[in-house]
């Protein structure tokens, strides 16, 4: 595009994924996705929409039309703060927040999220951490996230980190649940059982 070539804006049907909408609707438990009338209430209600590359409304429309690559790549799904402002305001009862979750899960699964964009990294690290200890340990989590994305940003947070430490709001001790492997209430046993119960192919738990 740099050397004078005009960007092509037309979409051919072959560029689209005809099953994408149904897959997302199923994983968001929301057939209402198809009821969207593109009114834009979601975008109007969303506190983060001014920063989104695609408004929530466009995410819904593009998901429905099968713009899989564009939707999964978009910053919008990672900017979504899960505040449910859109969901309660939508006149057609589309559960937009849950659609955003379904898209995040799909992006992580397909590995197409923006690589140095910290939200998916945070989500994945958090997921792993909780899976191991049953608790979220804020300090190690943040350190890992900054290491993986932008190490310089961590320096900027150092002052705050110190203050949190000094006021006793952040500690070095690893929190973990008591139930050990194989014991009653053990988290690994439970999660393994969830995996065993997963639908054969391509379900949200892989």
């Amino acid at each position, binding site marked *: 595009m740099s050397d004078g070539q005009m960007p092509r804006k037309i979409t051919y049907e072959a560029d689209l994924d005809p099953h994408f909408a149904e897959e997302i609707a199923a994983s968001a*438990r929301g057939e209402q996705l198809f009821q969207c009338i593109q009114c834009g209430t979601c975008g109007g209600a969303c506190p*983060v929409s001014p920063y989104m590359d695609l408004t929530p409304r466009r995410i819904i429309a593009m998901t429905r039309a099968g713009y899989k690559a564009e939707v999964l790549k978009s910053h919008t799904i990672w900017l979504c703060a899960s505040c449910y*402002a859109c969901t*309660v305001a939508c006149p057609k009862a589309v559960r937009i927040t849950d659609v955003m979750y379904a898209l995040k899960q799909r992006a992580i699964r397909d590995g197409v999220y923006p690589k140095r*964009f910290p939200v998916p990294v945070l989500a994945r690290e958090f997921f792993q951490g909780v899976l191991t200890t049953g608790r979220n340990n804020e300090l190690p989590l943040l350190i890992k996230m900054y290491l993986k994305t932008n190490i310089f940003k961590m320096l900027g947070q150092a002052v*705050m980190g110190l203050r949190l430490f000094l*006021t006793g*709001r952040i500690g070095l001790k690893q929190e973990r649940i008591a139930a050990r492997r194989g014991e009653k*209430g053990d988290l690994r046993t439970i999660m393994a*059982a969830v995996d065993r119960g997963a639908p054969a192919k391509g379900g949200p738990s892989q």
Partner: protein
Amino acid sequence: MTYLYYPGCSLKGTGRGYEESLLAVFDALQLPWAEVKDWNCCGATAYMAVDEVKAFTLAARNLAIAREQGGETAQVIAPCSACYLVLCKAQHVIHDAPEIGARITDALGAAQLTYGPRVQVRHPLDVLINDVGTERLAAAATAPLRGRRVACYYGCQMVRPYATFDDQYAPTSMDRVLRAMGAETVDWPLKTRCCGGTLTGTIEDVGLRLNYILLREAKKRGADAIATACPLCQFNLECYQDKISAVYGASRLPVLYFSQFMGMALGLSEARLGIQRNFVPLAAAV
């Protein structure tokens, strides 16, 4: 009946002041409580972004433990908005989507736990308003918060979309509680506008801007402090104030948990309420 206190991770970490003050208030009001045994993280928003069923399973494990500990209709108190939402949402999904529900209950069964569908998930403000009532609160306020003008900030996940104890658009429970404790509360339209959650940590400029808007408007409406009911809201609104001032030049505003304000009105010491942990000091009331 004993309330089962589900702290969630934040109330043991950045939100320690919330735990300290809330439990102190419960004790002062003689509300019996016990911590949910060997609870685990609720999964919060991040977990749901990776695997929804596992996120609900995490939540359900806590409800199963609560059931064992407090019986079929045990009452779980979830002070953190994210925990409150996730526990409520898991209950809704397990009820509304039987295939997912079966997978989760089976998985819990594998670790000898039984899911508790009738366990009630409640927010402390729900308990204070509906079980205690503003009259009893007012009577207990030995050191009423006269002269304080507080902007009650509810944030998002506590009122949307599952809470039934308060209005989604114009909630009043926190205002009523703090008014009963003698404070004046300011009316402002951003009570439920999201603080951005983890965005301060991930996409900082957006997170800062969202919190700046909240701080600015609270101040404009004449508030001399903000009261919150969520550890993440408190963290965002308070701990980032230096950065917000650096970008927007805004002046400072103390941000306390509503329970810290309540504890003050009940005559409890600042140390018991964890107020010394706050970054922005609360000036003496005028």
